[in-house]
């Protein structure tokens, strides 16, 4: 399984970046081989659509799981369509979040309830 963390730094001791679209790096860990890959986030420097470029990048890396803290509607749509599961990480290092994930202690982030009365079919056209 390939797990992608939004990260403030380039290694496992770095803090989890609270933002997905504009995080500094993506640290990608292959839990089978323990290989680590670090990718700079193009979303950070894009003026508009940070979430879209960040999500595209993550999809292209072929990851199965994303761990972050805040994720917006555009990124979520792309990741969900690519069948990537998103987990809400803790304000801690990548390493400890990886441990929590392995122990199944992180909560999954799902698309919010869509059914605000009167709002059906408006979002996500």
């Amino acid at each position, binding site marked *: 399984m390939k797990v992608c963390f939004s990260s403030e730094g380039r290694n496992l001791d770095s803090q989890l970046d*609270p*933002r997905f*679209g*504009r995080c500094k790096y993506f640290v990608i860990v292959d839990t089978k081989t323990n290989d680590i890959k670090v990718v700079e986030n193009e979303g950070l*420097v*894009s*003026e*508009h*659509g*940070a*979430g879209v470029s960040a999500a595209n990048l993550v999809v292209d890396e072929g990851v199965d799981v994303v761990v972050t*803290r*805040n*994720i*917006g*509607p*555009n990124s*979520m749509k792309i990741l969900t369509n690519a069948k990537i599961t998103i987990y*809400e990480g803790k304000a801690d290092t990548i390493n400890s979040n990886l441990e929590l994930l392995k122990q199944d202690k992180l909560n999954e*982030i799902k*698309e*919010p*309830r869509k059914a*605000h*009365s*009167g*709002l059906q079919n*408006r*979002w996500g056209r």
Partner: protein
Amino acid sequence: MKQIVVISGKGGTGKTTLTSSFAYLAKNRDIADCDVEAPNLNLILDNTPMKRELYIGGKIAYIDKEKCIECGKCKSVCRFDAVKDNFQINDIKCEGCGACVEVCPNEAIKLIDDETGDVIISSIEGGKFSYAQLRIGADGAGKVVTKVRQSLMEDENKPELIIIDGSPGIGCVVISSLTGCNMAVVVTEPTQSGLEDLMRVLNLVDYFRMKAYVVVNKFDINLEKTKEIEDFCSKNNFEVVGKIPFDPYVNKAIKESKPVVQFDESIAGREIKRIWNIINEKIKEV
């Protein structure tokens, strides 16, 4: 450190009126004006600029006159009609896509930094205040919002609380001012568009799994619509924490560049004080 963002969906419902009053009432807080396309909190908050940082938004094409052979290839590929007849770049039209750089046979064109504006940090009573000043015609974007927010975090004296004045809508800049906040205060007004835009922005807030509290401004100008807003909120489990009455003092306060809570006689000011006390308690719990 906690962060509260004040947003509205619809524009002109009273975000800055509320934020400036919160700024006056709160203690140990920093303020960020993230309504980067139309910042105005700096007019109301008594502030002294301390630091000004150049903000580079994106890239823009530049044609080197010495190397240009005026073949016109750049002109033919530019979708934004940004290459002028004298083979110079129209700064306002250029989007920095780089198509001209690709086709130029003489390597006369390069992309250079586009100086989009400045991020300014000011000192205010009891804290710091950051905002952006963009150049004329420049585009506000999530990136500049991120800069404005980060400029407060980079400082050694981290505040206990940051209050963010957001922008209207549900777009890029709003998303960027929402992410990572602990709570959203959503200001609306009793009009049809006030209600519709409230629904849309609350839907966006849901994505960030953030607590949102609703304030109806000028609630007494249309009691029927106010009722509709309250019904919508209770049905969808959003708490309406306050209803601010229409009050000519708000206008007077704006004219005098002061937060309305400074006027003791103001009924709107009194309600805002009450709202702040509620928010101030709630933010401790999240």
